């Protein structure tokens, strides 16, 4: 059993967990957390399947992930700004409406 194998399985499981959270979560911030969890899983997957060079993991994959991490935090920051503004306007923290009960 190799390290890459372990991380591919872990990334897949974490991605599945993230998808579950995205479906189930009510609170928008928890949906955002789930999305970030899914993103991290994808990053781990990219690096492990990117293959290894004599000088460590593929540098192009690493640069891609580094870019991805920064884009993810930028998108998260913008999403949080939207969530806070939405709460200020409507008093809601989820997409489920006020009278929209199950």
């Amino acid at each position, binding site marked *: *059993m190799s*390290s*890459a194998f*372990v*991380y*591919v399985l*872990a*990334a*897949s*499981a*974490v*991605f*599945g*967990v993230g*998808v*579950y959270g995205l*479906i*189930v*979560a*009510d*609170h928008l*911030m*928890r949906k*955002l*957390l*789930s999305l*970030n*969890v899914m993103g*991290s*899983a994808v990053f*781990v*997957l990219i*690096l*492990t*399947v990117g293959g*290894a*060079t004599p*000088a*460590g993991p593929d*540098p*192009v994959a*690493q*640069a891609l*992930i*580094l870019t991805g*991490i*920064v*884009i*993810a*935090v*930028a998108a*998260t*920051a913008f999403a*949080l*700004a939207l969530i*806070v*503004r939405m*709460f200020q306007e409507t*008093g809601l*923290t989820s997409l489920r409406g006020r009278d929209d009960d199950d």
Partner: protein
Amino acid sequence: MTIGVLVDLMLALALVGLSLRVVTGRALFRDIVLFILFGLVIALSWSRLGAPDLALAEAAIGAGLTGALMLMAYRRLVAGGAEDVAPRRRPPLLAVPVAVLTGALVALIGLAALGVERVPDAAGTIVLEELGASGLGNAVTAVLLVFRGLDTMLEMAVLLVALLGAWAVLGEVHPGRLHQVDRRTPLVGALLTTVAPVTLLIAVHLLLAGTDAPGGAFQAGAVLTGCGVLLVLTGTVRPRAAAGLATKLLVIAGLAAFVMIGASAVALGRAPMSLPGTWAVYLIETAMMLSIAVTMTLLFARARALEPERA
């Protein structure tokens, strides 16, 4: 099975367990803290996978910065009277099957990709062969700035757009609402006078080291943002009503440096986005570090600009 794989297994289990807790927990505050922990375990995984650049970035940006942004937004929601604990609802019937199938599909793709023989002329291999010509010792920095400069430039544009978007939905800013901890508390004052210069030093070190060793503009910018976050939290700086010229210049510095050097290459008859020398790498990285730090600090403070608190 070696000890290394055992460590990998432990990290993998921690990742799955933490992500489950983050996603299915009922108290948001605790789950944000667990998410930060998840980011730190990912950072450990990066170092296990031999990618120290990513470990640094993940610890500073993925765990630290994202966590700080989340906690700050959480605080704002709670201050406005939002509930922390979600009501227990029955999850949709298809949630578990969909999640399991998605995970299985990703595993299938991942395992299939693992089995593929690496092509001899893969981009990463060529990068390592051409590394000497770039004048840089760190292959990741070389990809970011020399070989795929356009991507990194557009990444700075994304960061700028995120800030502009946040400004657009900012609404009314309440000055003085950011005071979280009184900086006149003796210990906090001592922390500030020691840690602020140290973070500055670490940021500059990461920036300079980034050309040959793990580090670079992103990691340095994230560390510098940590300093900014500290200044915001201790009330050393406070929000201003509108962004001045200095703020605007700092926010676009990274993108502007890239555009100017990349475009001047065309004017001088070289390939677009080619850099005239190592000095250009340092120039662009410094500008990027400043832009990242200012942008992220403003996003954290939910402010258009910050000014020193007089008192």
